[in-house]
């Protein structure tokens, strides 16, 4: 706990000055999500601070243990509500690792595309909100317009803009709808235009540059010690990207670059995110032709014990009806054991450590949330800095309350 200390008497000034304790949050417009920061400040300088998380704790892990494996998927949407599909994906990949199943070719490509779409939504929100919180309303609107286009596509794909519930254990919620690829290609062009405008409005604006440059710095070595991953680490110059380091899905067949920064200040973080958006668009452009070519191929594993059987067979045949009943009431029987699987989410390594005891219910679901790990170094980033620099730093960390507090 931070406590105020009196300054030593006999200083130069005759003014009686004390360190001041300031509560920032839990409901502060700049702490998207709810987090409380208790600051000890000397004028505008931060002497000490304590970050208190947990205001959004909803018992995700406990809740998962009381349902079936299937029923945990909608809850993963609510972890990082900016990129729900990535959380779905990470969870399902962990379960599939325990099940040791091979997914159909098309499923992998659709998952990659959906994941990148989700990542774009997350980065666009982060960049837009960062401007908004520094008082620049206009760029925010451009970013959000682009994000709306992304979310419209997501709605077309899975029926909801935010809470996607798209990835299933052993497949996908449904096939990609007709005309999705064309709509996607159009939207990507519009998003690119918007990004150009966004760039013109912000990146060369001196007010913006002055507030982002050389703020919130921390050496790369400390970030490694803190277990920080994702754009934050890459901005500090370490090009760690799980899509390259441990390629999953079809990332080993895709051509994309890993942007890195130089000194790891907020400006670098901003630029890295901007460049990652461009790379995501590049990845999606490579996925689209494959999606067109493989239209009509299955996206689910053909095993009614894992994926509920297709409806026309459930309606028509007794055997499948019984399988449907068993599948719903008992859930997927995941073999006993433990597995950890991680993906590169928009904030860093999003991993799930799951333990199964062989019944249809998870014994333990643990989410290694990147946001949780990424806010921990905030104190060290800000010590000795200015009060006003907390806002841009916090924005670029992009702490998502739902994911951090679970």
């Amino acid at each position, binding site marked *: 706990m931070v406590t105020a200390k009196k300054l030593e008497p006999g200083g130069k000034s005759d003014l009686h000055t004390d360190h001041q304790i300031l509560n920032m949050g839990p409901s502060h417009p700049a702490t998207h999500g709810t987090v409380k920061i208790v600051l000890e400040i000397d004028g505008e300088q931060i002497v000490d601070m304590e970050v208190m*998380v*947990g205001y959004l*704790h909803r*018992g995700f*892990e*406990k*809740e998962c243990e*009381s349902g079936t494996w299937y029923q945990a998927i909608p809850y993963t949407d609510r972890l990082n509500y900016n990129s729900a599909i990535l959380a779905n994906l990470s969870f399902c990949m962990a379960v599939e*690792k*325990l099940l*040791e199943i091979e997914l159909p070719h098309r499923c992998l490509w659709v998952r990659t595309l959906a994941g990148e779409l989700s990542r774009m939504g997350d980065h666009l929100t982060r960049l837009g909100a960062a401007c908004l919180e520094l008082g620049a309303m206009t760029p925010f609107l451009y970013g959000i317009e682009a994000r709306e286009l992304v979310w419209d596509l997501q709605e077309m794909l899975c029926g909801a803009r935010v809470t996607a519930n798209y990835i299933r254990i052993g497949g996908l919620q449904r096939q990609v709808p007709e005309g999705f690829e064309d709509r996607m290609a159009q939207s990507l062009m519009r998003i690119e235009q918007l990004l150009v405008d966004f760039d013109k409005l912000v990146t060369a604006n001196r007010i913006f540059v002055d507030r982002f440059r050389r703020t919130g710095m921390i050496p*790369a*070595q*400390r970030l*490694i*010690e*803190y*277990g920080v991953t994702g754009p934050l680490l890459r901005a500090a110059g*370490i*090009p*760690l*990207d*799980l899509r*390259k*380091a*441990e390629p999953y899905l079809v990332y080993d067949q895709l051509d994309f670059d*890993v942007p890195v920064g130089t000194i790891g200040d907020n400006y670098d973080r901003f630029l890295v995110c901007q460049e990652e958006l461009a790379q995501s668009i590049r990845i999606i452009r490579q996925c689209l032709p494959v999606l067109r070519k493989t239209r009509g191929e299955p996206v689910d594993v053909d095993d009614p014990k894992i994926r509920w059987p297709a409806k026309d067979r459930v309606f028509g045949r007794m055997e499948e009806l019984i399988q449907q009943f068993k599948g719903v009431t008992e859930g997927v029987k995941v073999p006993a*054991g*433990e*597995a*950890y699987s*991680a993906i590169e989410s928009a904030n860093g*390594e999003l*991993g799930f*450590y799951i*333990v199964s005891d062989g019944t249809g219910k998870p*014994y*333990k679901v*643990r989410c*290694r949330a990147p946001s*949780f*790990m990424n806010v*921990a170094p905030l104190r060290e980033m800000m010590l000795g800095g200015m009060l006003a620099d907390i806002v841009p730093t916090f924005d670029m960390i992009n702490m998502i309350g739902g994911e951090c*507090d*679970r």
Partner: protein
Amino acid sequence: MAVELLERVGELLGDAVIDSHARLGDATVLVDAGRIQEVLGALRDSDLRFNVLMDLTAVDYLGRNPRFEVVYHLASVDTEPHGTDPARLPHRLRVKAGVLEDPCEIGSATSLYVSADWMEREVWDLYGIVFKGHPDLKRILLYEQFEGHPLRKDYPKERRQPLIGPLN
């Protein structure tokens, strides 16, 4: 790959390793809980260079002895630049240590990995496992007045907590 890694880890740790397996490609070692700091220190400083503590959690195996298992996920990130190649992540290791119900404690890893700080607080919060040597072990996700540790298997999901008033 995981098997080779386990051999090297086994050599390094000697008799601190109680059990090990490489199921599903995840190299896993079960170690002596009393020597956990020594084990993690050796893994971090050896040429295997497990420099990142990615995840730290616990599992409650109610009815088993020892009841709890603290699970560490270590990763070794190659931070040296390799021209224009992305950084590599050569290996990951899962370290597990059993913790008794009483005394429910294990050594803290905070002196070795800074990232253990918050995660150990979380495990204390949700499982009630004490990390000896942690500088400031207090609840992180829940509030101070919360009774019990919710992720223990004997904590009923529907249990209600007493209403707390304003603190001052």
